[in-house]
Protein backbone atom coordinates (compact mmCIF):
# COMPACT_ATOMS: atom_id res chain seq x y z
CA UNK A 1 0.00 0.00 0.00
CA UNK A 2 1.19 3.49 -0.71
CA UNK A 3 -0.20 6.86 0.22
CA UNK A 4 -0.41 10.15 -1.65
CA UNK A 5 0.49 13.40 0.07
CA UNK A 6 0.90 17.03 -0.95
CA UNK A 7 4.36 18.12 0.19
CA UNK A 8 7.27 20.36 -0.77
CA UNK A 9 10.46 19.05 -2.34
CA UNK A 10 12.36 19.82 0.82
CA UNK A 11 9.93 17.82 2.94
CA UNK A 12 10.04 15.01 0.38
CA UNK A 13 13.80 14.79 0.85
CA UNK A 14 13.35 14.49 4.62
CA UNK A 15 10.61 11.88 4.39
CA UNK A 16 12.63 9.87 1.90
CA UNK A 17 15.69 9.95 4.15
CA UNK A 18 13.72 8.71 7.14
CA UNK A 19 12.12 5.99 5.07
CA UNK A 20 15.51 4.98 3.69
CA UNK A 21 16.81 4.41 7.20
CA UNK A 22 18.82 7.59 7.67
CA UNK A 23 20.07 7.30 11.25
CA UNK A 24 21.55 10.78 11.67
CA UNK A 25 20.94 14.17 10.08
CA UNK A 26 23.12 17.21 10.71
CA UNK A 27 22.27 20.63 9.29
CA UNK A 28 22.70 24.36 9.51
CA UNK A 29 20.01 26.86 8.51
CA UNK A 30 20.16 28.41 5.06
CA UNK A 31 17.39 29.47 2.68
CA UNK A 32 15.87 27.91 0.52
CA UNK A 33 16.37 24.55 2.26
CA UNK A 34 15.20 25.33 5.80
CA UNK A 35 12.01 23.26 5.48
CA UNK A 36 14.21 20.17 5.21
CA UNK A 37 16.24 20.92 8.35
CA UNK A 38 13.03 21.79 10.20
CA UNK A 39 11.33 18.61 9.04
CA UNK A 40 14.26 16.58 10.33
CA UNK A 41 14.24 18.50 13.62
CA UNK A 42 10.58 17.66 14.06
CA UNK A 43 10.81 14.01 13.08
CA UNK A 44 14.25 12.44 13.59
CA UNK A 45 14.36 12.45 17.39
CA UNK A 46 10.77 11.28 17.58
CA UNK A 47 11.85 8.27 15.57
CA UNK A 48 14.71 7.65 18.01
CA UNK A 49 17.25 8.96 15.53
CA UNK A 50 19.77 11.76 15.68
CA UNK A 51 19.27 15.40 14.75
CA UNK A 52 21.77 18.13 15.55
CA UNK A 53 21.62 21.73 14.42
CA UNK A 54 25.36 22.09 13.97
CA UNK A 55 27.39 25.24 14.60
CA UNK A 56 28.35 25.43 10.92
CA UNK A 57 28.19 23.54 7.65
CA UNK A 58 31.76 22.43 8.34
CA UNK A 59 30.70 20.85 11.61
CA UNK A 60 27.59 19.31 10.02
CA UNK A 61 29.48 17.52 7.25
CA UNK A 62 32.12 16.34 9.73
CA UNK A 63 29.43 14.99 12.06
CA UNK A 64 28.26 13.08 8.97
CA UNK A 65 31.83 11.82 8.56
CA UNK A 66 31.79 10.57 12.15
CA UNK A 67 28.40 8.88 12.05
CA UNK A 68 29.14 7.30 8.68
CA UNK A 69 32.50 6.04 9.98
CA UNK A 70 30.52 4.61 12.90
CA UNK A 71 28.46 2.62 10.39
CA UNK A 72 25.23 4.62 10.13
CA UNK A 73 23.28 6.00 7.17
CA UNK A 74 23.68 9.79 7.29
CA UNK A 75 22.50 12.90 5.49
CA UNK A 76 23.15 16.62 5.52
CA UNK A 77 21.63 19.36 3.41
CA UNK A 78 22.31 22.97 2.56
CA UNK A 79 22.13 25.51 -0.23
CA UNK A 80 24.89 26.76 -2.49
CA UNK A 81 27.08 28.91 -0.14
CA UNK A 82 26.73 26.25 2.55
CA UNK A 83 27.66 23.50 0.11
CA UNK A 84 30.86 25.41 -0.65
CA UNK A 85 31.70 25.14 3.06
CA UNK A 86 30.99 21.43 3.04
CA UNK A 87 33.46 20.72 0.24
CA UNK A 88 36.32 20.09 2.66
CA UNK A 89 34.33 17.38 4.38
CA UNK A 90 33.09 15.88 1.11
CA UNK A 91 36.68 15.47 -0.09
CA UNK A 92 37.59 13.68 3.18
CA UNK A 93 34.47 11.50 2.97
CA UNK A 94 35.37 10.52 -0.59
CA UNK A 95 38.95 9.74 0.46
CA UNK A 96 37.89 7.73 3.50
CA UNK A 97 35.42 5.79 1.29
CA UNK A 98 32.41 6.60 3.43
CA UNK A 99 28.78 6.62 2.31
CA UNK A 100 27.02 9.97 2.78
CA UNK A 101 24.04 11.76 1.21
CA UNK A 102 24.24 15.52 0.66
CA UNK A 103 21.30 17.57 -0.61
CA UNK A 104 22.01 20.91 -2.32
CA UNK A 105 18.92 23.08 -2.79
CA UNK A 106 20.67 25.47 -5.15
CA UNK A 107 20.26 29.24 -5.05
CA UNK A 108 21.69 32.15 -7.03
CA UNK A 109 25.41 32.87 -6.76
CA UNK A 110 28.32 33.52 -6.68
CA UNK A 111 28.90 34.76 -3.13
CA UNK A 112 25.80 35.22 -1.05
CA UNK A 113 23.91 35.72 -4.32
CA UNK A 114 20.24 35.43 -3.48
CA UNK A 115 17.69 32.90 -2.32
CA UNK A 116 16.02 32.29 -5.71
CA UNK A 117 16.40 28.97 -7.57
CA UNK A 118 19.50 28.46 -9.71
CA UNK A 119 21.58 25.77 -11.38
CA UNK A 120 24.90 27.50 -11.11
CA UNK A 121 26.54 24.86 -8.89
CA UNK A 122 26.77 22.35 -11.75
CA UNK A 123 30.53 22.60 -12.06
CA UNK A 124 31.05 22.39 -8.32
CA UNK A 125 28.76 19.35 -8.13
CA UNK A 126 30.12 17.41 -11.08
CA UNK A 127 33.81 18.30 -11.01
CA UNK A 128 34.52 17.24 -7.46
CA UNK A 129 34.02 20.53 -5.64
CA UNK A 130 36.70 19.92 -3.05
CA UNK A 131 40.39 19.17 -3.48
CA UNK A 132 41.90 15.99 -4.84
CA UNK A 133 41.16 13.36 -7.45
CA UNK A 134 37.60 12.25 -6.64
CA UNK A 135 34.06 12.34 -7.97
CA UNK A 136 30.64 12.44 -6.41
CA UNK A 137 27.54 10.81 -7.85
CA UNK A 138 25.07 13.61 -8.67
CA UNK A 139 21.32 13.02 -8.90
CA UNK A 140 19.09 15.82 -10.26
CA UNK A 141 15.34 15.59 -9.56
CA UNK A 142 12.84 17.56 -11.66
CA UNK A 143 9.76 17.01 -9.50
CA UNK A 144 8.85 16.53 -5.87
CA UNK A 145 8.07 12.88 -6.55
CA UNK A 146 11.52 12.45 -8.02
CA UNK A 147 13.14 14.18 -5.04
CA UNK A 148 11.68 11.41 -2.91
CA UNK A 149 12.78 8.64 -5.24
CA UNK A 150 16.29 9.98 -5.81
CA UNK A 151 16.98 10.57 -2.13
CA UNK A 152 16.09 6.93 -1.44
CA UNK A 153 18.30 5.88 -4.36
CA UNK A 154 21.09 8.15 -3.09
CA UNK A 155 21.32 6.17 0.16
CA UNK A 156 21.54 2.87 -1.73
CA UNK A 157 24.19 4.17 -4.14
CA UNK A 158 26.21 5.75 -1.33
CA UNK A 159 26.30 2.38 0.46
CA UNK A 160 26.92 0.36 -2.68
CA UNK A 161 29.92 2.40 -3.79
CA UNK A 162 31.01 3.77 -0.37
CA UNK A 163 30.97 7.28 -1.76
CA UNK A 164 29.31 10.65 -1.16
CA UNK A 165 26.17 11.13 -3.27
CA UNK A 166 24.87 14.61 -4.01
CA UNK A 167 21.21 15.30 -4.69
CA UNK A 168 21.15 18.51 -6.74
CA UNK A 169 17.80 20.20 -6.22
CA UNK A 170 17.04 23.91 -6.47
CA UNK A 171 15.00 26.53 -4.66
CA UNK A 172 11.95 25.97 -6.85
CA UNK A 173 11.85 22.19 -6.55
CA UNK A 174 12.65 22.47 -2.86
CA UNK A 175 9.83 24.85 -2.04
CA UNK A 176 7.04 23.98 -4.44
CA UNK A 177 4.41 21.47 -3.36
CA UNK A 178 3.28 18.58 -5.52
CA UNK A 179 1.41 15.38 -4.87
CA UNK A 180 3.81 12.57 -4.02
CA UNK A 181 3.06 8.89 -3.88
CA UNK A 182 5.00 7.57 -0.93
CA UNK A 183 5.89 3.98 -1.70
CA UNK A 184 6.09 1.32 0.97
CA UNK A 185 9.77 0.56 1.23
CA UNK A 186 11.01 -2.59 2.76
CA UNK A 187 13.44 -1.91 5.60
CA UNK A 188 16.84 -1.09 4.17
CA UNK A 189 19.18 -4.03 3.85
CA UNK A 190 21.51 -4.11 6.82
CA UNK A 191 24.71 -4.56 4.92
CA UNK A 192 27.81 -5.62 6.79
CA UNK A 193 30.24 -2.77 7.33
CA UNK A 194 33.39 -4.50 8.53
CA UNK A 195 35.31 -1.23 8.18
CA UNK A 196 33.09 0.70 10.59
CA UNK A 197 34.27 2.00 13.96
CA UNK A 198 32.42 0.02 16.59
CA UNK A 199 35.16 -0.71 19.11
CA UNK A 200 37.63 -3.46 18.19
CA UNK A 201 35.89 -6.26 20.07
CA UNK A 202 37.30 -9.57 18.89
CA UNK A 203 39.12 -8.08 15.91
CA UNK A 204 42.08 -5.93 14.92
CA UNK A 205 41.44 -2.16 15.27
CA UNK A 206 39.84 -0.29 12.35
CA UNK A 207 41.18 3.11 11.32
CA UNK A 208 39.13 5.47 9.13
CA UNK A 209 41.53 7.94 7.59
CA UNK A 210 42.56 9.76 4.46
CA UNK A 211 46.23 10.49 5.10
CA UNK A 212 48.52 8.15 3.16
CA UNK A 213 52.02 9.58 3.31
CA UNK A 214 53.75 7.09 1.03
CA UNK A 215 53.28 8.03 -2.64
CA UNK A 216 52.59 4.51 -3.88
CA UNK A 217 50.10 3.87 -1.10
CA UNK A 218 48.10 7.02 -1.88
CA UNK A 219 48.26 6.23 -5.59
CA UNK A 220 46.79 2.82 -4.81
CA UNK A 221 43.80 4.54 -3.18
CA UNK A 222 43.54 6.93 -6.15
CA UNK A 223 43.48 3.98 -8.56
CA UNK A 224 40.97 2.05 -6.46
CA UNK A 225 38.67 5.09 -6.47
CA UNK A 226 39.06 5.46 -10.24
CA UNK A 227 38.12 1.79 -10.75
CA UNK A 228 34.99 2.42 -8.69
CA UNK A 229 34.19 5.57 -10.69
CA UNK A 230 34.46 3.60 -13.95
CA UNK A 231 32.07 1.04 -12.45
CA UNK A 232 29.65 3.85 -11.55
CA UNK A 233 29.89 5.25 -15.09
CA UNK A 234 29.15 1.77 -16.41
CA UNK A 235 26.14 1.05 -14.18
CA UNK A 236 24.50 4.20 -12.92
CA UNK A 237 23.82 6.55 -15.85
CA UNK A 238 20.19 7.67 -15.69
CA UNK A 239 18.26 9.95 -18.04
CA UNK A 240 14.88 10.46 -19.65
CA UNK A 241 14.21 10.88 -23.37
CA UNK A 242 11.14 12.79 -24.52
CA UNK A 243 10.07 12.90 -28.19
CA UNK A 244 13.59 12.09 -29.37
CA UNK A 245 12.93 9.58 -32.18
CA UNK A 246 12.06 12.09 -34.94
CA UNK A 247 13.69 15.17 -33.38
CA UNK A 248 15.58 17.63 -35.58
CA UNK A 249 16.26 19.75 -32.53
CA UNK A 250 17.19 18.23 -29.16
CA UNK A 251 16.95 20.19 -25.94
CA UNK A 252 19.15 19.12 -23.05
CA UNK A 253 18.12 20.24 -19.57
CA UNK A 254 17.85 18.90 -16.02
CA UNK A 255 15.79 19.75 -12.94
CA UNK A 256 13.62 22.87 -13.13
CA UNK A 257 14.96 23.78 -16.59
CA UNK A 258 13.74 20.43 -17.89
CA UNK A 259 10.20 21.35 -16.83
CA UNK A 260 10.48 24.54 -18.92
CA UNK A 261 11.76 22.43 -21.80
CA UNK A 262 8.89 19.94 -21.69
CA UNK A 263 6.54 22.87 -22.16
CA UNK A 264 8.77 24.24 -24.93
CA UNK A 265 8.70 20.85 -26.71
CA UNK A 266 4.90 20.83 -26.53
CA UNK A 267 4.65 24.37 -27.93
CA UNK A 268 7.23 23.64 -30.64
CA UNK A 269 5.36 20.49 -31.71
CA UNK A 270 2.18 22.57 -31.99
CA UNK A 271 4.08 24.75 -34.46
CA UNK A 272 5.10 21.65 -36.38
CA UNK A 273 8.75 21.70 -35.27
CA UNK A 274 10.30 18.33 -34.46
CA UNK A 275 11.78 19.08 -31.06
CA UNK A 276 12.71 16.57 -28.36
CA UNK A 277 14.32 16.61 -24.92
CA UNK A 278 17.03 14.64 -23.17
CA UNK A 279 16.83 15.08 -19.42
CA UNK A 280 19.91 13.91 -17.52
CA UNK A 281 18.92 12.47 -14.14
CA UNK A 282 22.49 11.66 -13.18
CA UNK A 283 24.75 14.66 -13.85
CA UNK A 284 27.72 12.52 -12.96
CA UNK A 285 27.97 9.99 -14.43
CA UNK A 286 26.77 12.03 -17.40
CA UNK A 287 24.44 10.48 -20.02
CA UNK A 288 26.85 11.11 -22.88
CA UNK A 289 25.71 8.11 -24.93
CA UNK A 290 22.07 9.14 -25.60
CA UNK A 291 23.28 12.63 -26.53
CA UNK A 292 25.86 11.16 -28.90
CA UNK A 293 23.15 8.94 -30.41
CA UNK A 294 20.83 11.91 -30.91
CA UNK A 295 23.69 13.83 -32.54
CA UNK A 296 23.64 11.23 -35.33
CA UNK A 297 20.24 12.40 -36.54
CA UNK A 298 19.44 15.86 -35.19
CA UNK A 299 20.44 19.20 -36.73
CA UNK A 300 21.41 20.95 -33.51
CA UNK A 301 21.08 20.91 -29.73
CA UNK A 302 19.91 23.58 -27.33
CA UNK A 303 21.23 23.34 -23.80
CA UNK A 304 18.94 25.10 -21.31
CA UNK A 305 20.16 26.03 -17.83
CA UNK A 306 19.55 28.35 -14.91
CA UNK A 307 23.14 29.52 -15.22
CA UNK A 308 25.08 31.20 -17.99
CA UNK A 309 26.40 27.92 -19.31
CA UNK A 310 27.91 25.11 -17.24
CA UNK A 311 26.35 21.80 -18.28
CA UNK A 312 26.76 22.89 -21.91
CA UNK A 313 30.39 21.78 -21.63
CA UNK A 314 29.26 18.20 -20.99
CA UNK A 315 26.77 18.42 -23.86
CA UNK A 316 29.56 19.56 -26.19
CA UNK A 317 31.87 16.81 -24.91
CA UNK A 318 29.10 14.28 -25.67
CA UNK A 319 28.27 15.71 -29.12
CA UNK A 320 31.97 15.76 -30.05
CA UNK A 321 31.48 18.39 -32.73
CA UNK A 322 28.92 16.41 -34.71
CA UNK A 323 26.52 19.37 -34.74
CA UNK A 324 26.13 22.82 -33.17
CA UNK A 325 25.09 23.25 -29.53
CA UNK A 326 23.14 26.45 -28.82
CA UNK A 327 22.35 27.80 -25.38
CA UNK A 328 19.54 29.44 -23.48
CA UNK A 329 20.16 30.36 -19.89
CA UNK A 330 19.05 32.80 -17.26
CA UNK A 331 21.04 33.77 -14.20
CA UNK A 332 20.59 35.53 -10.89
CA UNK A 333 17.83 33.22 -9.74
CA UNK A 334 15.73 33.61 -12.90
CA UNK A 335 14.15 30.66 -14.67
CA UNK A 336 14.18 30.58 -18.49
CA UNK A 337 10.70 30.66 -20.04
CA UNK A 338 9.43 28.32 -22.78
CA UNK A 339 9.25 31.41 -25.00
CA UNK A 340 12.98 32.05 -24.57
CA UNK A 341 13.71 28.42 -25.45
CA UNK A 342 11.48 28.65 -28.55
CA UNK A 343 13.30 31.83 -29.62
CA UNK A 344 16.65 30.01 -29.48
CA UNK A 345 15.21 27.06 -31.43
CA UNK A 346 13.90 29.47 -34.08
CA UNK A 347 17.25 31.22 -34.28
CA UNK A 348 18.93 27.85 -34.85
CA UNK A 349 16.41 26.79 -37.48
CA UNK A 350 17.05 30.02 -39.39
CA UNK A 351 20.84 29.89 -39.20
CA UNK A 352 21.75 26.17 -39.26
Amino acid at each position, binding site marked *: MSNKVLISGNEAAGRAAIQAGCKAYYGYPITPQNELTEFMAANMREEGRIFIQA*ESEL*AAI*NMCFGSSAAGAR*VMTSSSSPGISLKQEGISYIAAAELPCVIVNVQRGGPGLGNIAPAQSDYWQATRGGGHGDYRTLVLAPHSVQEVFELVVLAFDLADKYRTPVLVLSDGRIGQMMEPVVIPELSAPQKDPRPWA*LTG*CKGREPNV*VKSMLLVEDVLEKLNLRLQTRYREIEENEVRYEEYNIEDADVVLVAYGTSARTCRQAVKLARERGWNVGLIRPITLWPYPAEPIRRAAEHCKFFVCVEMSLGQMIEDVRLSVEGRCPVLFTGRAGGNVPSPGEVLATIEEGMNSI
Partner: protein
Amino acid sequence: MSTKIEVSGKTFLRPETLSDNVTHYCAGCGHGIAHRLLAEVIDELDIREKTIGMAPVGCSVLAYNYLRIDMAEAAHGRTPAVATGIKRIHPDKVVFCYQGDGDLAAIGTAEIIHAANRGENLTVIFINNAVYGMTQGQMAPTTLIGMKSTTTPHGRAAGDGQPIRVAELLSALTAPVYIERVSLSSPANIRKARKAILKGFVNQMEGKGFSLIECLSPCPTYWRRSPEKALKFIDEEMTKAFPLGVFRDKDREVETK
Protein backbone atom coordinates in the same frame (compact mmCIF):
# COMPACT_ATOMS: atom_id res chain seq x y z
CA MET B 1 48.00 -8.66 27.99
CA SER B 2 50.63 -6.08 28.83
CA THR B 3 54.18 -6.86 27.77
CA LYS B 4 57.30 -6.82 29.95
CA ILE B 5 60.21 -4.83 28.55
CA GLU B 6 63.71 -4.72 30.00
CA VAL B 7 65.48 -1.37 29.55
CA SER B 8 68.82 -0.61 31.25
CA GLY B 9 68.20 -3.30 33.82
CA LYS B 10 64.75 -1.92 34.72
CA THR B 11 61.46 -3.63 33.92
CA PHE B 12 58.63 -1.72 32.24
CA LEU B 13 55.21 -2.99 31.36
CA ARG B 14 53.83 -2.00 28.01
CA PRO B 15 50.07 -1.52 28.28
CA GLU B 16 47.99 -3.79 26.09
CA THR B 17 46.53 -0.71 24.38
CA LEU B 18 49.99 0.49 23.33
CA SER B 19 51.46 -1.06 20.18
CA ASP B 20 55.14 -1.90 19.91
CA ASN B 21 55.70 0.35 16.88
CA VAL B 22 58.84 2.48 16.92
CA THR B 23 57.89 6.08 17.72
CA HIS B 24 58.09 8.82 15.09
CA TYR B 25 57.98 11.53 17.76
CA CYS B 26 61.14 13.53 18.44
CA ALA B 27 63.33 12.89 21.47
CA GLY B 28 61.78 14.49 24.56
CA CYS B 29 58.35 15.00 22.95
CA GLY B 30 55.36 14.91 25.27
CA HIS B 31 53.07 12.96 22.93
CA GLY B 32 54.70 9.67 23.87
CA ILE B 33 53.95 10.31 27.55
CA ALA B 34 50.36 11.33 26.81
CA HIS B 35 49.85 8.24 24.60
CA ARG B 36 51.14 5.99 27.35
CA LEU B 37 48.88 7.60 29.95
CA LEU B 38 45.91 7.10 27.63
CA ALA B 39 46.86 3.48 27.07
CA GLU B 40 47.28 2.86 30.80
CA VAL B 41 43.90 4.41 31.57
CA ILE B 42 42.17 2.43 28.82
CA ASP B 43 43.76 -0.77 30.17
CA GLU B 44 42.84 0.07 33.74
CA LEU B 45 39.19 0.65 32.79
CA ASP B 46 39.29 -2.45 30.55
CA ILE B 47 37.68 -0.56 27.66
CA ARG B 48 40.17 -1.17 24.80
CA GLU B 49 37.54 -3.02 22.79
CA LYS B 50 34.88 -0.37 23.27
CA THR B 51 36.97 2.78 22.85
CA ILE B 52 37.02 4.88 19.68
CA GLY B 53 39.66 7.61 19.41
CA MET B 54 40.11 10.67 17.19
CA ALA B 55 43.48 11.53 15.75
CA PRO B 56 43.87 15.22 14.84
CA VAL B 57 45.87 16.92 12.12
CA GLY B 58 49.23 17.68 13.70
CA CYS B 59 52.18 15.60 14.92
CA SER B 60 49.79 13.18 16.62
CA VAL B 61 47.85 12.40 13.44
CA LEU B 62 49.67 9.06 13.58
CA ALA B 63 48.33 8.27 17.07
CA TYR B 64 46.59 5.25 15.54
CA ASN B 65 50.01 3.72 14.92
CA TYR B 66 50.51 3.48 18.66
CA LEU B 67 47.05 2.95 20.15
CA ARG B 68 45.51 -0.46 19.52
CA ILE B 69 41.92 0.77 19.31
CA ASP B 70 39.44 1.83 16.62
CA MET B 71 40.33 5.35 15.47
CA ALA B 72 39.28 8.00 12.98
CA GLU B 73 41.40 10.74 11.53
CA ALA B 74 39.58 14.06 11.41
CA ALA B 75 40.07 17.05 9.12
CA HIS B 76 42.04 19.81 10.83
CA GLY B 77 40.05 21.19 13.75
CA ARG B 78 36.91 19.15 13.03
CA THR B 79 37.87 16.51 15.57
CA PRO B 80 35.04 17.24 18.06
CA ALA B 81 32.48 17.28 15.23
CA VAL B 82 33.61 13.86 13.98
CA ALA B 83 33.67 12.57 17.56
CA THR B 84 30.14 13.90 18.07
CA GLY B 85 29.00 11.97 14.99
CA ILE B 86 30.56 8.76 16.30
CA LYS B 87 29.42 9.08 19.92
CA ARG B 88 25.83 9.84 18.95
CA ILE B 89 25.72 6.59 16.96
CA HIS B 90 27.51 4.58 19.66
CA PRO B 91 26.53 6.11 23.02
CA ASP B 92 27.64 2.85 24.68
CA LYS B 93 31.23 3.24 23.41
CA VAL B 94 33.93 5.44 24.93
CA VAL B 95 34.95 8.19 22.50
CA PHE B 96 37.86 10.55 23.00
CA CYS B 97 39.44 13.38 21.03
CA TYR B 98 43.18 13.81 21.04
CA GLN B 99 43.88 17.36 19.85
CA GLY B 100 46.83 19.68 19.56
CA ASP B 101 46.78 23.44 20.09
CA GLY B 102 46.47 24.28 16.39
CA ASP B 103 43.66 21.77 15.92
CA LEU B 104 41.70 22.75 19.02
CA ALA B 105 42.54 26.40 19.70
CA ALA B 106 42.96 27.85 16.19
CA ILE B 107 41.26 26.16 13.25
CA GLY B 108 38.84 24.18 15.41
CA THR B 109 37.69 26.76 17.96
CA ALA B 110 34.08 26.62 16.75
CA GLU B 111 33.93 22.83 16.92
CA ILE B 112 35.39 22.52 20.44
CA ILE B 113 33.26 25.34 21.87
CA HIS B 114 30.05 23.89 20.49
CA ALA B 115 30.82 20.28 21.38
CA ALA B 116 31.56 21.49 24.92
CA ASN B 117 28.46 23.67 24.91
CA ARG B 118 26.22 20.79 23.87
CA GLY B 119 27.75 18.84 26.72
CA GLU B 120 28.68 16.02 24.35
CA ASN B 121 29.57 12.97 26.41
CA LEU B 122 33.18 12.99 25.21
CA THR B 123 36.66 13.11 26.71
CA VAL B 124 39.09 15.56 25.13
CA ILE B 125 42.84 15.29 25.64
CA PHE B 126 44.24 18.67 24.64
CA ILE B 127 48.00 18.76 24.10
CA ASN B 128 49.27 22.31 24.50
CA ASN B 129 52.91 22.60 23.45
CA ALA B 130 52.69 26.22 22.31
CA VAL B 131 53.95 25.52 18.81
CA TYR B 132 53.00 23.91 15.47
CA GLY B 133 55.29 20.88 15.40
CA MET B 134 54.14 19.01 12.31
CA THR B 135 54.61 22.00 10.02
CA GLN B 136 57.97 22.70 11.65
CA GLY B 137 57.70 25.34 14.28
CA GLN B 138 55.20 28.08 13.45
CA MET B 139 53.32 30.17 16.01
CA ALA B 140 50.42 28.42 17.76
CA PRO B 141 47.44 30.16 19.37
CA THR B 142 49.09 29.18 22.67
CA THR B 143 52.60 30.47 21.88
CA LEU B 144 53.81 32.65 24.76
CA ILE B 145 54.37 36.39 24.32
CA GLY B 146 58.00 36.88 23.36
CA MET B 147 58.44 33.24 22.31
CA LYS B 148 60.18 32.77 19.00
CA SER B 149 58.70 30.60 16.25
CA THR B 150 59.30 30.44 12.50
CA THR B 151 56.41 32.86 11.96
CA THR B 152 57.29 35.07 14.94
CA PRO B 153 61.05 35.24 14.32
CA HIS B 154 61.42 38.20 16.70
CA GLY B 155 59.16 36.69 19.33
CA ARG B 156 55.36 36.73 19.57
CA ALA B 157 54.06 40.26 20.03
CA ALA B 158 50.66 41.29 21.39
CA GLY B 159 49.53 42.06 17.85
CA ASP B 160 50.09 38.40 16.95
CA GLY B 161 47.47 37.50 19.53
CA GLN B 162 47.68 36.57 23.20
CA PRO B 163 48.14 32.93 24.21
CA ILE B 164 44.65 31.46 24.40
CA ARG B 165 43.76 29.86 27.72
CA VAL B 166 41.52 27.05 26.59
CA ALA B 167 40.71 25.60 30.02
CA GLU B 168 39.60 29.02 31.30
CA LEU B 169 37.75 29.84 28.08
CA LEU B 170 35.70 26.65 28.08
CA SER B 171 35.01 27.00 31.79
CA ALA B 172 32.85 30.01 30.92
CA LEU B 173 30.35 27.55 29.44
CA THR B 174 27.60 25.96 31.50
CA ALA B 175 27.65 22.44 30.09
CA PRO B 176 31.17 21.00 30.62
CA VAL B 177 31.46 18.78 33.69
CA TYR B 178 35.22 18.64 34.13
CA ILE B 179 38.09 20.80 32.91
CA GLU B 180 41.60 20.53 34.31
CA ARG B 181 45.02 21.73 33.17
CA VAL B 182 47.92 19.42 33.94
CA SER B 183 51.56 19.28 32.98
CA LEU B 184 53.74 16.51 31.60
CA SER B 185 56.90 18.11 33.01
CA SER B 186 57.82 15.79 35.92
CA PRO B 187 56.97 12.36 37.33
CA ALA B 188 54.75 13.97 39.98
CA ASN B 189 52.92 16.06 37.38
CA ILE B 190 52.58 13.07 35.06
CA ARG B 191 50.92 11.12 37.86
CA LYS B 192 48.45 14.00 38.30
CA ALA B 193 47.86 14.05 34.56
CA ARG B 194 47.10 10.32 34.61
CA LYS B 195 44.57 10.85 37.37
CA ALA B 196 42.91 13.65 35.42
CA ILE B 197 42.71 11.57 32.23
CA LEU B 198 41.26 8.67 34.20
CA LYS B 199 38.62 10.98 35.67
CA GLY B 200 37.79 12.29 32.20
CA PHE B 201 37.13 8.76 30.97
CA VAL B 202 35.18 7.72 34.05
CA ASN B 203 32.99 10.81 33.68
CA GLN B 204 32.09 9.70 30.18
CA MET B 205 31.42 6.11 31.21
CA GLU B 206 29.09 7.43 33.91
CA GLY B 207 27.30 9.51 31.28
CA LYS B 208 28.19 12.81 32.94
CA GLY B 209 29.14 14.76 29.81
CA PHE B 210 32.00 16.80 28.44
CA SER B 211 35.47 16.56 30.03
CA LEU B 212 38.65 18.22 28.83
CA ILE B 213 42.16 17.71 30.13
CA GLU B 214 44.66 20.28 28.89
CA CYS B 215 48.21 18.91 29.05
CA LEU B 216 51.18 21.30 28.95
CA SER B 217 53.60 19.27 26.87
CA PRO B 218 57.23 19.74 25.81
CA CYS B 219 58.38 20.26 22.22
CA PRO B 220 62.19 20.40 22.55
CA THR B 221 62.70 20.38 18.78
CA TYR B 222 60.79 23.57 18.01
CA TRP B 223 61.43 25.24 21.32
CA ARG B 224 65.12 24.85 20.34
CA ARG B 225 65.87 23.45 23.78
CA SER B 226 67.24 20.20 25.16
CA PRO B 227 64.56 17.80 26.47
CA GLU B 228 65.61 18.64 30.01
CA LYS B 229 65.46 22.41 29.46
CA ALA B 230 62.10 22.01 27.72
CA LEU B 231 60.67 20.45 30.88
CA LYS B 232 62.09 23.31 32.91
CA PHE B 233 60.52 25.78 30.44
CA ILE B 234 57.08 24.32 31.18
CA ASP B 235 57.51 24.72 34.93
CA GLU B 236 59.17 28.14 34.84
CA GLU B 237 57.53 29.90 31.90
CA MET B 238 54.50 28.10 30.50
CA THR B 239 52.70 27.71 33.81
CA LYS B 240 52.81 31.50 34.27
CA ALA B 241 50.57 31.91 31.23
CA PHE B 242 48.78 28.60 31.77
CA PRO B 243 48.29 27.97 35.49
CA LEU B 244 47.70 24.35 36.44
CA GLY B 245 44.54 23.33 38.22
CA VAL B 246 40.91 22.30 38.07
CA PHE B 247 38.75 24.87 36.32
CA ARG B 248 35.50 22.95 36.38
CA ASP B 249 34.44 19.95 38.34
CA LYS B 250 30.72 19.43 38.72
CA ASP B 251 31.38 16.61 41.22
CA ARG B 252 32.98 19.08 43.60
CA GLU B 253 30.21 21.64 43.07
CA VAL B 254 27.74 19.01 44.12
CA GLU B 255 29.85 18.12 47.15
CA THR B 256 30.10 21.72 48.35
CA LYS B 257 26.37 22.39 48.06
